[in-house]
């Protein structure tokens, strides 16, 4: 399996797309496939402060309820409201329409500690 080259990945199966001092975060297609049909996403609140590897939400599938772990620290500036009514976007397009939140980064260097696509592919192989 291959993963988008422009993203960074955490061991907890979240991804980060950097855009200057901001980033978009979500869960990987690998995580979504493992969870099965996702039926509910508990989103963080706009304005909430995330700390790297801390929990920031919950994703519920037909077989499990799992915490979401922030791949980076920062302040939530936007959440994907579409997920409230269409949580299945996480299964359908984990790296695109299934994004979860946009974050103003507290420390952009944190990203350096995350995996690139090749390393994540090895991790999940």
């Amino acid at each position, binding site marked *: 399996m291959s993963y988008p080259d422009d993203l960074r990945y955490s061991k907890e199966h979240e991804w980060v797309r950097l855009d200057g001092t901001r980033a978009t975060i979500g869960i990987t297609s690998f995580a979504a496939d493992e969870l099965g049909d996702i039926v*509910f996403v*508990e989103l963080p*609140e706009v304005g909430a402060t995330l700390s790297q590897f801390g929990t920031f939400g919950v994703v*519920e599938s037909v077989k*499990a*309820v799992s*915490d979401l772990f922030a791949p980076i620290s920062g302040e939530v500036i936007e959440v994907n409201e579409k997920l409230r009514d269409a949580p299945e976007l996480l299964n359908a397009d984990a790296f695109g329409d299934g994004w979860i939140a946009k974050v103003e980064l507290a420390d952009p260097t944190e990203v350096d500690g995350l995996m690139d696509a090749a390393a994540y592919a090895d991790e999940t192989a």
Partner: protein
Amino acid sequence: MTYSPHTEADRARMLEAVGVASIEDLFADIPVAVRAGSWGVPPPLAEQEVRAELARLAGRNRIPDVTFLGAGVYRHLIPAVVGEVIGRSEFATAYTPYQPEVSQGTLQSIYEFQSLICELTGMEVATASHYDGATATAEAALMACRLTRRSRVAVSAGVNPDYRRVLQTYCSGPGIEVDTIPVDLADGGDGTTDPAAIERVGEVACVIAAQPNFYGQLEPMQSLADAAHAAGAQFVAVVEPTSLALLEAPGEYGADIVASEGQPLGIPVNFGGPFVGLMAARMASVRQMPGRLVGATRDVQGRKGYVLTLQAREQHIRREKAASNICTNQALMALAATAYLTAVGPAGLREVAELSMTQARHLTAALESAGLAKRRFGGTYLNEVALRVPNAASRHAALAERGIVAGHLLERDQPELRDTLLLVATELTTDDDIERLVSALDETR
């Protein structure tokens, strides 16, 4: 018939398999100093000796001729059909089966219970039930903390003191601070919670208030709900279920969570229960509800069926992150409530509530006109009333000797409520009961 399934030979083989010489060796890691010594258990008895011993113990129960004791547990008529339904072997099992393949009857009964509780409370969703009113109240507080991401709760002093103690216990683990909103308990005061006091408690997850409150007084629930909402808090209404046949439903005055003791709905007055806790909320909060829910669905052939819904949030799946690790369902008692509500119907429940209210007024009037008691508070009461009675403690004890329980002696837990009895009347309170109380109190004047 032997109750031990293993023979000596079985035990010897098991000990050999695990590689120890004796059963005693299995406890070798436990220091002798902390092991239980003698259990103090009497020697075995024959069946007829056990029966005689139990009869002797039961003989120590004091069953009053007349009682006006409520204070959270209420005596109501229980139609015979309730016992008949819950005694059926399909329901009276040691453990509630939930597998939809084999338990459609149980699941449907729980679904109907939830539907009845929603109808009674005016709320959108109800759980399959909790241990009792106190634990349902404490769970409601924890739920409010999850919903608001706050870690302080405020509870009115008009909530049953036992519930407040359970709340304190539940909150001590996760470090949730419990603030108490005072009730005006002064002689001649209104005996209710002041909505303005809510503004002063600051940022709390919820405000918890009881209707009627522990002192029988009717609280200004709408104003309390509005004040809670203005503070960004959830409003938790602790209600007495039969009163809902007369009073406004919590859903109408803006309660976010309803917690209740379901005992008055067809469950006898027992020391220690089992009772049943009711909890209802708004659909938007359903994922933070503790315990379990039964939902209606359709199977692959389009037939209606019932299943546990949102089960993924329960502790057997979510472990320490479950919505609650300290609650379960009281399925059989919930079934009693379902059978009771079905048997009496909306009109019957209203009659129960009206008769209780009428008899409480009769009781108050009889005691006041005889110059024996005076209402402690102003305001409105429903069917439980706090009355000032001089030398209440000694007269309460004297009446108990005569088989009359003159309500709950409030000074027992609350010294500031000296010489105040909390008396309840229900549809089972007869005019004769009231006359007996009046004359017995008169004789101890």
